[in-house]
Protein backbone atom coordinates (compact mmCIF):
# COMPACT_ATOMS: atom_id res chain seq x y z
CA UNK A 1 0.00 0.00 0.00
CA UNK A 2 1.59 3.22 -1.15
CA UNK A 3 1.21 6.26 1.15
CA UNK A 4 1.12 9.92 0.13
CA UNK A 5 4.29 10.66 2.08
CA UNK A 6 6.14 8.09 -0.09
CA UNK A 7 5.59 10.29 -3.14
CA UNK A 8 8.20 13.05 -3.55
CA UNK A 9 6.67 16.53 -3.65
CA UNK A 10 7.22 17.93 -7.14
CA UNK A 11 5.72 20.64 -9.27
CA UNK A 12 4.78 18.79 -12.45
CA UNK A 13 3.75 21.93 -14.41
CA UNK A 14 5.90 24.15 -16.62
CA UNK A 15 5.64 27.77 -17.77
CA UNK A 16 7.01 29.33 -20.98
CA UNK A 17 10.59 30.66 -20.70
CA UNK A 18 10.78 34.19 -19.29
CA UNK A 19 7.10 34.16 -18.35
CA UNK A 20 7.59 35.65 -14.87
CA UNK A 21 9.97 38.32 -16.21
CA UNK A 22 7.29 39.66 -18.56
CA UNK A 23 4.21 39.18 -16.38
CA UNK A 24 4.56 42.42 -14.31
CA UNK A 25 4.77 44.50 -17.52
CA UNK A 26 1.74 42.73 -19.02
CA UNK A 27 -0.26 43.25 -15.83
CA UNK A 28 0.69 46.91 -15.51
CA UNK A 29 -0.20 47.66 -19.13
CA UNK A 30 -3.61 46.03 -18.54
CA UNK A 31 -4.05 48.14 -15.39
CA UNK A 32 -3.33 51.32 -17.36
CA UNK A 33 -5.79 50.32 -20.08
CA UNK A 34 -8.45 49.45 -17.50
CA UNK A 35 -8.02 52.80 -15.73
CA UNK A 36 -8.33 54.68 -19.04
CA UNK A 37 -11.52 52.88 -20.13
CA UNK A 38 -13.10 52.29 -16.73
CA UNK A 39 -15.19 55.52 -16.43
CA UNK A 40 -16.64 55.18 -19.95
CA UNK A 41 -17.40 51.46 -19.48
CA UNK A 42 -19.04 52.24 -16.14
CA UNK A 43 -21.18 55.00 -17.72
CA UNK A 44 -22.29 52.75 -20.59
CA UNK A 45 -23.09 49.77 -18.40
CA UNK A 46 -24.94 52.00 -15.94
CA UNK A 47 -26.92 53.57 -18.82
CA UNK A 48 -27.87 50.13 -20.12
CA UNK A 49 -28.94 48.99 -16.66
CA UNK A 50 -31.10 52.10 -16.20
CA UNK A 51 -32.55 52.27 -19.72
CA UNK A 52 -35.03 49.41 -19.39
CA UNK A 53 -36.66 50.41 -16.08
CA UNK A 54 -36.84 54.06 -17.20
CA UNK A 55 -38.50 53.04 -20.49
CA UNK A 56 -40.96 50.85 -18.58
CA UNK A 57 -41.79 53.73 -16.21
CA UNK A 58 -42.34 56.14 -19.12
CA UNK A 59 -44.71 53.72 -20.87
CA UNK A 60 -46.59 53.06 -17.60
CA UNK A 61 -46.78 56.84 -17.00
CA UNK A 62 -48.22 57.46 -20.46
CA UNK A 63 -51.00 54.92 -19.84
CA UNK A 64 -51.60 56.05 -16.28
CA UNK A 65 -51.91 59.76 -17.01
CA UNK A 66 -53.70 59.48 -20.35
CA UNK A 67 -57.07 61.33 -20.07
CA UNK A 68 -60.12 59.09 -20.22
CA UNK A 69 -62.00 59.50 -23.55
CA UNK A 70 -65.68 60.53 -23.39
CA UNK A 71 -68.39 59.96 -26.00
CA UNK A 72 -68.10 63.62 -26.97
CA UNK A 73 -64.33 63.22 -27.49
CA UNK A 74 -64.87 60.17 -29.67
CA UNK A 75 -67.49 61.94 -31.79
CA UNK A 76 -65.19 64.96 -32.08
CA UNK A 77 -62.68 62.75 -33.81
CA UNK A 78 -65.08 61.61 -36.53
CA UNK A 79 -65.69 63.70 -39.67
CA UNK A 80 -69.18 65.12 -40.04
CA UNK A 81 -69.37 63.64 -43.54
CA UNK A 82 -68.61 60.18 -42.17
CA UNK A 83 -71.40 60.47 -39.62
CA UNK A 84 -73.86 61.66 -42.28
CA UNK A 85 -72.81 58.86 -44.61
CA UNK A 86 -73.19 56.29 -41.84
CA UNK A 87 -76.65 57.54 -40.94
CA UNK A 88 -77.84 57.59 -44.56
CA UNK A 89 -76.54 54.03 -45.23
CA UNK A 90 -77.69 52.39 -42.04
CA UNK A 91 -81.10 50.93 -41.51
CA UNK A 92 -82.30 52.39 -38.28
CA UNK A 93 -83.74 50.06 -35.79
CA UNK A 94 -86.81 50.85 -33.90
CA UNK A 95 -86.06 53.20 -31.01
CA UNK A 96 -87.52 50.87 -28.44
CA UNK A 97 -85.53 47.97 -29.89
CA UNK A 98 -82.31 49.98 -29.84
CA UNK A 99 -82.98 51.02 -26.34
CA UNK A 100 -83.54 47.44 -25.29
CA UNK A 101 -80.40 46.21 -27.06
CA UNK A 102 -78.08 48.99 -26.00
CA UNK A 103 -79.46 49.44 -22.53
CA UNK A 104 -79.84 53.24 -23.00
CA UNK A 105 -82.62 55.23 -21.40
CA UNK A 106 -84.80 57.52 -23.53
CA UNK A 107 -83.06 60.55 -21.99
CA UNK A 108 -79.63 59.19 -22.89
CA UNK A 109 -80.72 58.53 -26.48
CA UNK A 110 -82.14 62.08 -26.77
CA UNK A 111 -78.87 63.47 -25.48
CA UNK A 112 -76.91 61.32 -27.94
CA UNK A 113 -79.15 62.46 -30.82
CA UNK A 114 -78.69 66.13 -29.88
CA UNK A 115 -74.94 65.63 -29.72
CA UNK A 116 -74.83 64.06 -33.18
CA UNK A 117 -77.05 66.66 -34.83
CA UNK A 118 -75.22 69.52 -33.20
CA UNK A 119 -72.07 68.29 -34.96
CA UNK A 120 -73.67 68.47 -38.41
CA UNK A 121 -72.77 71.71 -40.06
CA UNK A 122 -76.22 72.26 -41.67
CA UNK A 123 -78.59 75.08 -40.87
CA UNK A 124 -82.37 74.57 -40.93
CA UNK A 125 -82.44 76.38 -44.31
CA UNK A 126 -79.86 73.99 -45.73
CA UNK A 127 -81.94 71.06 -44.63
CA UNK A 128 -85.09 72.51 -46.18
CA UNK A 129 -83.23 73.18 -49.43
CA UNK A 130 -82.26 69.52 -49.60
CA UNK A 131 -85.85 68.35 -49.33
CA UNK A 132 -87.60 67.77 -52.62
CA UNK A 133 -90.84 69.51 -51.73
CA UNK A 134 -92.56 68.51 -54.95
CA UNK A 135 -92.17 64.81 -54.29
CA UNK A 136 -93.29 64.91 -50.71
Amino acid sequence: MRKLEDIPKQNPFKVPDGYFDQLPTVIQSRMTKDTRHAPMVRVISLSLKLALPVAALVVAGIFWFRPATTLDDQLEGIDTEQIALYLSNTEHADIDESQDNAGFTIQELDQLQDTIYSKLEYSDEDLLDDIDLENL
Partner: protein
Amino acid sequence: MEDSELLSKIRNPDTRNYGINLLVRAYQQRVYWHVRKMVIDHDDADDLTQEVFIKVNNAIDRFREDAQLFTWIYRIATNECLNFLNKKRRRFFLPIEDVGAELEAKLELDGDEIQRKLQKALLKLPDKQRLVFNMKYFDDMPYEQIAEITSTSVGALKASYHHAVKKIEEFIND
Protein backbone atom coordinates in the same frame (compact mmCIF):
# COMPACT_ATOMS: atom_id res chain seq x y z
CA MET B 1 10.53 44.48 1.55
CA GLU B 2 7.99 44.58 4.37
CA ASP B 3 4.29 44.69 3.45
CA SER B 4 3.86 48.00 5.31
CA GLU B 5 6.60 49.61 3.24
CA LEU B 6 5.08 48.22 0.04
CA LEU B 7 1.64 49.52 0.99
CA SER B 8 2.94 52.99 1.81
CA LYS B 9 4.54 53.16 -1.65
CA ILE B 10 1.24 52.08 -3.26
CA ARG B 11 -0.74 54.62 -1.25
CA ASN B 12 1.51 57.48 -2.26
CA PRO B 13 0.33 58.70 -5.73
CA ASP B 14 3.93 59.56 -6.71
CA THR B 15 5.17 56.01 -6.13
CA ARG B 16 1.99 54.04 -6.75
CA ASN B 17 3.04 52.45 -10.07
CA TYR B 18 6.40 51.50 -8.64
CA GLY B 19 4.73 50.03 -5.55
CA ILE B 20 2.29 47.97 -7.65
CA ASN B 21 5.17 46.72 -9.76
CA LEU B 22 6.99 45.60 -6.60
CA LEU B 23 3.84 43.91 -5.29
CA VAL B 24 3.32 41.98 -8.55
CA ARG B 25 6.97 40.90 -8.56
CA ALA B 26 6.75 39.81 -4.92
CA TYR B 27 3.60 37.71 -5.23
CA GLN B 28 3.21 36.74 -8.90
CA GLN B 29 4.75 33.28 -8.62
CA ARG B 30 2.81 32.24 -5.55
CA VAL B 31 -0.44 33.49 -7.07
CA TYR B 32 0.26 31.88 -10.45
CA TRP B 33 1.09 28.46 -8.98
CA HIS B 34 -1.89 28.58 -6.64
CA VAL B 35 -4.14 29.29 -9.62
CA ARG B 36 -2.39 26.91 -12.00
CA LYS B 37 -2.82 23.94 -9.67
CA MET B 38 -6.53 24.65 -9.63
CA VAL B 39 -7.22 25.41 -13.31
CA ILE B 40 -4.40 23.25 -14.79
CA ASP B 41 -4.13 25.06 -18.15
CA HIS B 42 -1.35 27.69 -18.46
CA ASP B 43 -3.42 30.16 -20.54
CA ASP B 44 -6.29 30.06 -18.06
CA ALA B 45 -3.86 30.46 -15.16
CA ASP B 46 -2.19 33.38 -16.94
CA ASP B 47 -5.53 35.17 -17.50
CA LEU B 48 -6.64 34.59 -13.93
CA THR B 49 -3.32 35.72 -12.43
CA GLN B 50 -3.57 38.99 -14.37
CA GLU B 51 -7.18 39.36 -13.25
CA VAL B 52 -6.19 38.78 -9.61
CA PHE B 53 -3.60 41.58 -9.67
CA ILE B 54 -5.99 43.96 -11.44
CA LYS B 55 -8.52 43.31 -8.67
CA VAL B 56 -5.81 43.76 -6.05
CA ASN B 57 -4.89 47.10 -7.64
CA ASN B 58 -8.53 48.23 -7.71
CA ALA B 59 -9.22 47.22 -4.11
CA ILE B 60 -5.91 47.92 -2.38
CA ASP B 61 -7.08 51.28 -1.04
CA ARG B 62 -9.79 49.43 0.85
CA PHE B 63 -7.32 46.89 2.34
CA ARG B 64 -7.32 47.64 6.07
CA GLU B 65 -4.40 45.43 7.11
CA ASP B 66 -6.60 43.29 9.38
CA ALA B 67 -4.99 40.32 7.64
CA GLN B 68 -1.58 39.82 6.07
CA LEU B 69 -1.29 41.21 2.55
CA PHE B 70 -0.39 37.76 1.26
CA THR B 71 -3.49 36.19 2.85
CA TRP B 72 -5.69 38.89 1.32
CA ILE B 73 -4.21 38.36 -2.16
CA TYR B 74 -4.54 34.58 -1.81
CA ARG B 75 -8.16 35.05 -0.89
CA ILE B 76 -8.83 37.04 -4.07
CA ALA B 77 -6.97 34.39 -6.10
CA THR B 78 -8.99 31.60 -4.49
CA ASN B 79 -12.29 33.33 -5.29
CA GLU B 80 -11.19 33.85 -8.88
CA CYS B 81 -10.35 30.15 -9.23
CA LEU B 82 -13.63 28.95 -7.76
CA ASN B 83 -15.65 31.38 -9.89
CA PHE B 84 -13.75 30.30 -12.99
CA LEU B 85 -14.42 26.60 -12.34
CA ASN B 86 -18.10 27.26 -11.62
CA LYS B 87 -18.45 29.25 -14.84
CA LYS B 88 -16.73 26.46 -16.77
CA ARG B 89 -19.19 23.99 -15.31
CA ARG B 90 -22.17 26.16 -16.22
CA ARG B 91 -20.84 26.79 -19.75
CA PHE B 92 -20.47 23.08 -20.50
CA PHE B 93 -23.48 22.01 -18.39
CA LEU B 94 -21.17 19.77 -16.36
CA PRO B 95 -22.19 18.23 -13.05
CA ILE B 96 -19.96 19.19 -10.11
CA GLU B 97 -17.75 16.10 -10.23
CA ASP B 98 -17.15 16.20 -14.00
CA VAL B 99 -15.04 19.33 -14.25
CA GLY B 100 -12.11 17.10 -13.23
CA ALA B 101 -12.42 15.15 -16.48
CA GLU B 102 -12.47 18.43 -18.41
CA LEU B 103 -9.29 19.57 -16.64
CA GLU B 104 -7.64 16.17 -17.03
CA ALA B 105 -7.77 16.62 -20.80
CA LYS B 106 -5.53 19.68 -20.34
CA LEU B 107 -3.08 17.91 -18.08
CA GLU B 108 0.33 17.94 -19.79
CA LEU B 109 2.74 16.78 -17.17
CA ASP B 110 6.41 16.22 -16.87
CA GLY B 111 7.60 13.71 -14.34
CA ASP B 112 7.11 10.05 -13.67
CA GLU B 113 4.04 7.90 -13.62
CA ILE B 114 3.35 8.38 -9.91
CA GLN B 115 3.27 12.19 -10.31
CA ARG B 116 0.78 11.84 -13.16
CA LYS B 117 -1.33 9.54 -11.06
CA LEU B 118 -1.23 11.97 -8.14
CA GLN B 119 -2.44 14.85 -10.33
CA LYS B 120 -5.23 12.70 -11.78
CA ALA B 121 -6.24 11.72 -8.24
CA LEU B 122 -6.36 15.39 -7.25
CA LEU B 123 -8.75 16.13 -10.08
CA LYS B 124 -11.20 13.63 -8.64
CA LEU B 125 -11.56 15.81 -5.53
CA PRO B 126 -14.22 18.52 -5.21
CA ASP B 127 -12.81 22.01 -5.94
CA LYS B 128 -12.74 23.22 -2.33
CA GLN B 129 -11.16 20.03 -1.03
CA ARG B 130 -8.52 20.21 -3.78
CA LEU B 131 -7.87 23.82 -2.85
CA VAL B 132 -7.31 22.91 0.81
CA PHE B 133 -5.13 19.96 -0.15
CA ASN B 134 -2.95 22.11 -2.45
CA MET B 135 -2.41 24.79 0.20
CA LYS B 136 -1.55 22.26 2.91
CA TYR B 137 0.41 19.68 0.93
CA PHE B 138 2.21 21.72 -1.75
CA ASP B 139 2.45 25.15 -0.07
CA ASP B 140 2.93 23.89 3.51
CA MET B 141 0.55 26.53 4.79
CA PRO B 142 -0.55 26.34 8.43
CA TYR B 143 -4.22 25.50 8.94
CA GLU B 144 -4.78 28.87 10.61
CA GLN B 145 -3.75 30.70 7.47
CA ILE B 146 -5.83 28.43 5.21
CA ALA B 147 -8.76 29.07 7.56
CA GLU B 148 -8.36 32.80 7.07
CA ILE B 149 -8.20 32.46 3.27
CA THR B 150 -11.15 30.10 2.95
CA SER B 151 -13.24 31.42 5.86
CA THR B 152 -13.51 27.88 7.21
CA SER B 153 -12.79 26.54 10.70
CA VAL B 154 -9.49 24.78 11.38
CA GLY B 155 -11.37 21.63 12.43
CA ALA B 156 -13.27 21.48 9.15
CA LEU B 157 -10.03 22.01 7.23
CA LYS B 158 -8.27 19.18 9.07
CA ALA B 159 -11.18 16.84 8.30
CA SER B 160 -11.21 17.94 4.67
CA TYR B 161 -7.45 17.35 4.28
CA HIS B 162 -7.65 13.96 5.98
CA HIS B 163 -10.45 12.86 3.60
CA ALA B 164 -8.54 14.16 0.60
CA VAL B 165 -5.41 12.18 1.55
CA LYS B 166 -7.51 9.04 2.02
CA LYS B 167 -9.17 9.41 -1.39
CA ILE B 168 -5.84 10.10 -3.11
CA GLU B 169 -4.17 7.06 -1.57
CA GLU B 170 -7.10 4.89 -2.58
CA PHE B 171 -6.89 6.15 -6.16
CA ILE B 172 -3.11 5.67 -6.33
CA ASN B 173 -3.31 2.11 -5.05
CA ASP B 174 -6.23 1.18 -7.28
